[in-house]
């Protein structure tokens, strides 16, 4: 972890402003912000990026990202991104969304943006809970998981089952790249970085919609220490939300990914 996200290293990430994160200790948002910023630096895209922040703990992503960022109403980043990308088709446009934002109030927007094959990327941070509003059940909350609004643990008969958004999106032809990863170990952080970079690449090569779901920690709302939270990701989340690439563009005979689709 030292190598990737040490303060010294991040101070060099031009795509991050030189301010301290406000996130709780052990929260995954800071790590994921940093990964995204480093990728954008490495791809040389800082001046060609427009990001859409969600409503959730990461609403103030614009305080940290040192590139153009707009806020959007709760759940609507994919619609806002659609408007932006259609006006600036050559920019890297990505949404950064929590599981309440994306998988509850914004389900319609994410499915339809994905189904239109919008050339945007979504970084979907799944911490299995509503962080900003103090830890209520999210659509992704695991069975048995206690939250403010499932004090006895989520019960399938009462609250339904955790929603696997990626698996739902995988059937849509407009969706070109889907992967799930985590940030609970340094190795996984590195993998997450590779996957998000691939997702951006898919967007820039005009293949269609791309998205990476990142399983993330919320020790504060889970009522755990930061270390216990890492175990929760390992022992509870990963078994239910399997990691890896779920969908990627077809390779052509030269081993390269698919034909570019016509620009919108």
């Amino acid at each position, binding site marked *: 972890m030292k190598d990737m996200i040490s303060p010294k290293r991040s101070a060099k990430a031009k795509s991050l402003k030189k301010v301290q994160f406000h996130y709780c200790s052990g929260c995954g948002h800071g790590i994921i912000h940093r990964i995204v910023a480093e990728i954008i630096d490495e791809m040389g895209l800082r001046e060609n990026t427009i990001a859409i922040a969600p409503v959730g703990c990461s609403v103030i992503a614009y305080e940290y990202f040192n590139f153009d960022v707009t806020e959007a*109403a709760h759940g609507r980043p994919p619609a806002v991104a659609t408007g932006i990308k259609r006006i600036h088709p050559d920019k890297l446009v990505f949404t950064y969304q929590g599981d309440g934002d994306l998988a509850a109030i914004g389900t319609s927007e994410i499915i*339809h943006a994905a189904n239109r094959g919008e050339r945007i990327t979504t970084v979907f941070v799944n911490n299995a809970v509503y962080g900003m509003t103090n830890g209520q059940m999210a659509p992704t909350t695991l069975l048995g998981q206690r939250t403010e609004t499932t004090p006895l643990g989520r019960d399938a008969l009462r609250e339904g089952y955790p929603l696997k958004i990626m698996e739902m999106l995988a059937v849509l032809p407009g969706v070109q790249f889907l992967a799930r990863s985590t940030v609970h170990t340094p190795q996984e952080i590195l993998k997450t970085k590779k996957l998000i970079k691939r997702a951006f690449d898919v967007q820039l090569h005009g293949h269609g919609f791309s998205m990476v779901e990142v399983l993330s920690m919320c020790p504060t709302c889970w009522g755990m220490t930061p270390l216990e939270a890492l175990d929760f990701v390992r022992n509870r989340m990963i078994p239910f939300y399997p990691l890896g690439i779920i969908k990627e563009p077809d390779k052509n005979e030269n081993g390269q990914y698919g034909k570019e689709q016509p620009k919108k």
Partner: protein
Amino acid sequence: MKVLTNGNEAIAEAAVQAGCRFYAGYPITPQNEIPGYFARRMPEVKGTFIQSESEIAAINMVFGAAVAGARCMTSSSGPGISLKQEGISYIAACQLPVVIVNMMRGGPGLGDVSPAQSDYFQATKGGGHGDYHMIVFAPEDVQEAYTLTFNAFNYADYYRNPVMILGDGILGQMMEPIEQVNPSFELPLPEKDYILDGCRGREARSMMSLFLREGELERHNAILQEKYKRIQEELCLVEMVDVDQSDVVIVAYGTVARICNTVMREASNEGIKVGLIRPITLWPFPAKQIYDKVKNNAKVLVVEMSAGQMLEDVKLALNGKANIDFLGRMGGGIPLVVDILKKVVSMKGDS
């Protein structure tokens, strides 16, 4: 050269002429000719037309297009406009130039698809959450729908504020010959120094309506209110006909004002002088112009296709100066000339 067109298509073409290159909307009667027209027209001008999955998505798509710096529009009616309210509040908060069309239909609820003016409060008083205003234009015919829509884009950019074109099902569907002549706009448009297009050669920008630091949100609100005050001072548009020498003054807007033109003629045949005040901007409401023009103890009749919404603004404007009566039809009913005339005759009779 005149072209024969309906209000909905006139609005869509005026938007294209004004440089609107992004439209998103969801079908609802009585405004379907607007998305239909854009679907055909946008590809011709290399613009974008999106039939969105909902009105919520549509308003957020235009939010994005406006943040990206494009002239953009969405349109709907009644239930769909209600769904857009959260987005409109964000657009107003972020001071984005977006043009929104509401071709009003009868409500509340699903209501019906007949013309109505019952979204006046929603349009002029805010509609969504928070202290904000849209500029609201109320065209009375197809020609004016064209002209006002064209300049709506200019005013939206000039004030960095959402603008609503508030019509009704009659205006949307009615065919009339119009001149597609683009009106002039003399005011200098400010540079769009807020748009997000990648931070090449400049500092990174952000667009937000969240202000958490002590006092920040109150200061932001003060900036908005100052702008609204300026708009109120600069932009009140109203047409006044024969108000001075009248027995009864009618106040009406949009389609209803047109009906009242006939009332004026027929009343004059019966020897009754009727004046007409027709607000063209509903917000800012031309309160001062109305107050200055209407004489003490004048007889004023407000006519609307609602239970009496603009009526409240007329009362506030006149501040007890005149005797105000009301005639309204609701739920898609259209006030008839005979009924308005009868009311005018009875008002003239009471002395």
